[in-house]
């Protein structure tokens, strides 16, 4: 499914956040949005999810502006995971994952066997089978984040938008989560866009790196091509050392 952004401008309480964004997200690939704090990357992701109305320009899904797609229909094409979703009181892993079925259900449309299958599949894919009935409040940070990923998977959308899915996780769990995201992408062909803070992890777990600075795209391409000393100077206005390990490996960024 093709997701594209054209001429996107957006100001929040008078402050310009996005200043003309043009971006085509590669279908079936993992794209990482990186950039300094306040660069507008999260706002860009929220705009892609249709959560933020742009002042100009548009986000299009297969050519149709997301603003014109009915909310339930959009929710069956595109799932969004906020940075820190509230965990409802008394919820279990399974009840969290079931929330992903919301766009298919209603007051007079209860869960069917097909919905339960989607939930079971999402639980299995994220390796949560053993703890599916655990109360969400007792989960570790890594397990909780996996449960949230499972929730977006049960929504059965071709596009997943993840806002800093690794926040609050230690390094091994960040890697574990990004491997999971990668595996989902490889096995199911999802188009995945995520905001990441750690450039090295982004380089290793994404096909495409998109660098955002001051509400503009300044980098867009495979890590090996765009993560260079010059590229990072443009993105962060800072001098960072980049080690290019050669043909196969991803670049390594070090503080100077």
């Amino acid at each position: 499914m093709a997701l594209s952004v054209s001429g996107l401008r957006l100001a929040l309480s008078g402050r310009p956040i996005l200043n003309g964004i043009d971006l085509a997200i590669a279908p079936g690939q993992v794209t990482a949005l990186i950039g300094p704090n306040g660069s507008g990357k999260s706002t860009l992701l929220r705009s892609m999810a249709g959560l933020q109305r742009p002042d100009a320009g548009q986000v299009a899904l297969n050519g149709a502006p997301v603003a014109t797609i009915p909310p339930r229909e959009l929710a069956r094409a595109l799932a969004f995971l906020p940075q820190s979703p509230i965990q409802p009181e008394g919820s279990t892993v399974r009840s969290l994952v079931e929330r992903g079925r919301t766009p298919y259900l209603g007051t007079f449309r209860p869960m069917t066997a097909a919905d339960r299958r989607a939930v079971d599949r999402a639980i299995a894919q994220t390796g949560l089978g053993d703890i599916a009935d655990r109360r969400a409040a007792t989960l570790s940070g890594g397990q909780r984040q996996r449960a949230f990923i499972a929730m977006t998977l049960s929504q059965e959308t071709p596009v997943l938008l993840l806002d800093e899915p690794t926040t609050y996780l230690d390094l091994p769990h960040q890697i574990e989560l990004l491997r999971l995201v990668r595996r989902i992408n490889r096995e199911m062909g999802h188009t995945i866009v995520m905001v990441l803070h750690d450039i090295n992890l982004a380089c290793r777990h994404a096909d495409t790196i998109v660098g955002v600075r001051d509400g503009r795209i300044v980098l867009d391409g495979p890590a090996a091509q765009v993560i260079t000393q010059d590229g990072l100077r443009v993105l962060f206005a800072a001098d960072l050392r980049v080690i290019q390990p050669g043909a196969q490996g991803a670049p390594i960024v070090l503080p100077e």
Partner: protein
Amino acid sequence: MTRPAVTFGLCAVMLGLAAALLRVDGPLGPGATDRLILLHIRLPRMLLAGLTGAMLGMAGSLLQTVLRNPLATPDVIGFGGGAAAGVAVSIVTTGGLALVLPAALVGGGLSAVLVLGLTWRNGVQPLQLVLVGVAANLMLFALTDVLLSLAPGLQAGETARFLTGSFAAAHWPAVAWAALACALAGAVALATGFGLSRLDMGDDLARSQGLNPSRLRLVAIVLSAALTSLEVGQSGPLPFVALLAGPIARHLLGVGGPAIFHAALVGAALALAADLAAHLPIGGTTLPAGLYTSLVGGPAMLAIILMSKERS
């Protein structure tokens, strides 16, 4: 406890209280006078108490759910205060009770418009709404106090008596309005129940799952303001019922998520119990139902806070 068990238990308590209320002033015989007493005094009073409690239970738990705040109830965020101010204006200016109901509806409606208007920014802002609502409530109570102080003794007394909340003046038209309001609120709660149950993970997630939190909030707020204004205009405020019904219902059910219908049952039971207490002779007289919910409400709220602290 399982859901059916809680439902059954609450219904049993409610019916028990209703039956007690019909007999509390002495048993009735088969005679014509006794029938008239039952039909025109006791039955409408009992029904009005029960329906009023249900209205308040729904109004309170709807607001608590959509604003994600256990303190956000119509009598805390200005709707009850607006209706009460309307009542005070109408009694003081007209000298009687004739216009109390429309005045309460106008007062409650205006305060809802004011609070919503001041806090609307691309939709309802829950926290802002509660804060502005609390401030509006305080101002409206001050306005009511000013009116009470300026009014001649007779009107002031009448207003103060009305604003303590009592079912003693119940009549069939009031029962009919309350029943209609309950039916309408029940239908809306049923139709929006699914969406309401999925607002608890934040608006971004709800919207990205295809829901419209702002519309759900607006519906719940308008309904809650209407129910509260009608209630105040008919029987005077019954403090704490709207606040307590939702948390008690959720506590009994033992799960998160909205419990609008169970809150209605709890509200009905609370109001019936308060009216039963209002029949107790104390110092040669009786005290109004609203006074009992006031007296019990504070400690009950404290108990709920302490109990939920222990649980979590």
